[in-house]
């Protein structure tokens, strides 16, 4: 029922698009059949793979940087109430700046390339990771902490067996958010600069009037986004099997 109704909605939307486009209601927008043909073309003749690699590279490297640096900044801020209170206003200010305002700056410094899109995506995503890591580190249960203290558990074991597992659910959410933001900003930056990848292909095909290919790349962006999101959801479920929101309780 669930799967079937989801599929039904998709079919309905595609059907409406097909009818509207075929009867000329959508102006220059091609029908879904034409777009599907263009997607198939990009996959089969191999011209889509290069841009895919560029977008994935920007996404992956910026995500990696955002996660590593986000944890390094967030953890110390989260474990102490003093450092958290000191830095909260600064963090709130920084994370509300839209990453794309730095396009002119990074293009000036690093040119129109991978380096620029990585920097922009990193700046957009790192705050999600910082904030989630802070929340995670602050969520330490006092009873659990007393338990570790009363047994005199060693510092390293306290980090790996108490602090990290406590923060892990929050950090996993942070990684999933950061992954979505990194893709979003990577593609946006590739359009605005333009700087390779799916983004530049969308601009190029729009300028040359190849609308089916332009829409094909837009569809591919959506597919990529969904694939990334479901991968991270699966990853979260498997790492956090013990967490109340993922438990399969037997008793």
């Amino acid at each position: 029922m669930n799967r079937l109704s989801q599929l039904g909605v998709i079919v309905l939307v595609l059907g409406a698009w097909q009818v509207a486009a075929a009867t000329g209601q959508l102006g220059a927008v091609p029908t879904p059949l034409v777009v599907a043909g263009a997607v198939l073309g990009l996959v089969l003749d191999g011209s889509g793979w290069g841009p895919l690699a560029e977008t994935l590279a920007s996404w992956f490297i910026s995500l990696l940087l955002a996660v590593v640096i986000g944890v390094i900044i967030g953890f110390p801020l989260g474990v102490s109430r003093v450092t958290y209170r000191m830095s909260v206003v600064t963090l709130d200010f920084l994370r509300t700046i839209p990453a794309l305002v730095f396009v002119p700056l990074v293009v000036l410094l690093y040119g129109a390339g991978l380096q620029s899109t990585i920097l922009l995506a990193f700046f957009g995503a790192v705050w999600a990771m910082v904030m989630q890591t802070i929340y995670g580190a602050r969520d330490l249960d006092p009873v659990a902490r007393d338990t570790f203290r009363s047994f005199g558990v060693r510092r390293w074991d306290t980090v790996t067996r108490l602090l990290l597992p406590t923060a892990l659910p929050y950090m996993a959410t942070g990684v999933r958010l950061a992954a979505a933001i990194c893709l979003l900003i990577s593609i946006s930056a590739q359009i605005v600069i333009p700087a390779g990848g799916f983004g530049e292909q969308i601009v190029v095909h729009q300028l040359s009037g190849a609308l089916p290919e332009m829409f094909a790349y837009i569809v591919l962006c959506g597919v990529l986004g969904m694939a990334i999101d479901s991968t991270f959801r699966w990853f979260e479920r498997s790492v956090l099997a013990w967490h109340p929101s993922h438990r399969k309780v037997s008793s």
Partner: protein
Amino acid sequence: MQSISTPILEADGIGKSFGDNQVLSDVTFSVAKGQFVCIVGPSGTGKTTLLRALSGLGPANSGEVRVNGRVVVQPPAELAVVFQDYSRSLMPWMKVGKNVELPLRRLGLSREERRKRVEQALRDVDLGHAEELYPWQMSGGMQQRAAIARSLAYRPEILIMDEPFASVDAQTRADLEDLMLDIRDRLGVSIVLVTHDIEEAVYLGDKVIVLSGRPASVAASVEIPLGTGRDQIETKSRPAYLELRAEIHRMIMRKSDTVAPQRAPR
């Protein structure tokens, strides 16, 4: 070898306040080796505060706690704590076996020795089958037994328990009480158990410390001469048991009558 009369744990004039709110005042008592001491008092008297001072988790403002003659400034190595809230004291990301092994990791034991201790401790509390379960896959009573097993595996000289059976059902509670008596008899560990339940205190204790007043101090220290081999039905119907229970009950009632409900002068 220590004689039975040498105190293993001494509380000497413990006072503790949080800001203007004085919770404990001049609490003094001692625990002999192998002795089962119950601290009883109504809710909100500062039993948990006292327990945190005893275990070095929340040091007192005045007076001192001594374990084997040494002044406690941080949790002493010869002491283990069983908390009331087992669901938060057992780590949900570790299986029961790993939870029990946790305090053993710093003792410099070999892997096999750690394994043996974990298995032994789990068998001691009748959880030999549960090593590979997560705590949240077990009932409340089983979880508290796992927490007790963790403390036993550590082989402490003193076991400190904070209302350990307050959140399990009556039958489980009786079973766990008998388990603790059995553990004390077999392993010779000294136990300090905090409870608000007078029946429980008299049934388990060799000595009952009655905590009362505001700030709380020791209203009485009552020896419980009911001997070993106690039984939930037989012991609890003995006249001596009933008398002691009534006596302690009266002490708590009388004490709380004479103390004004306002904050005590400092």
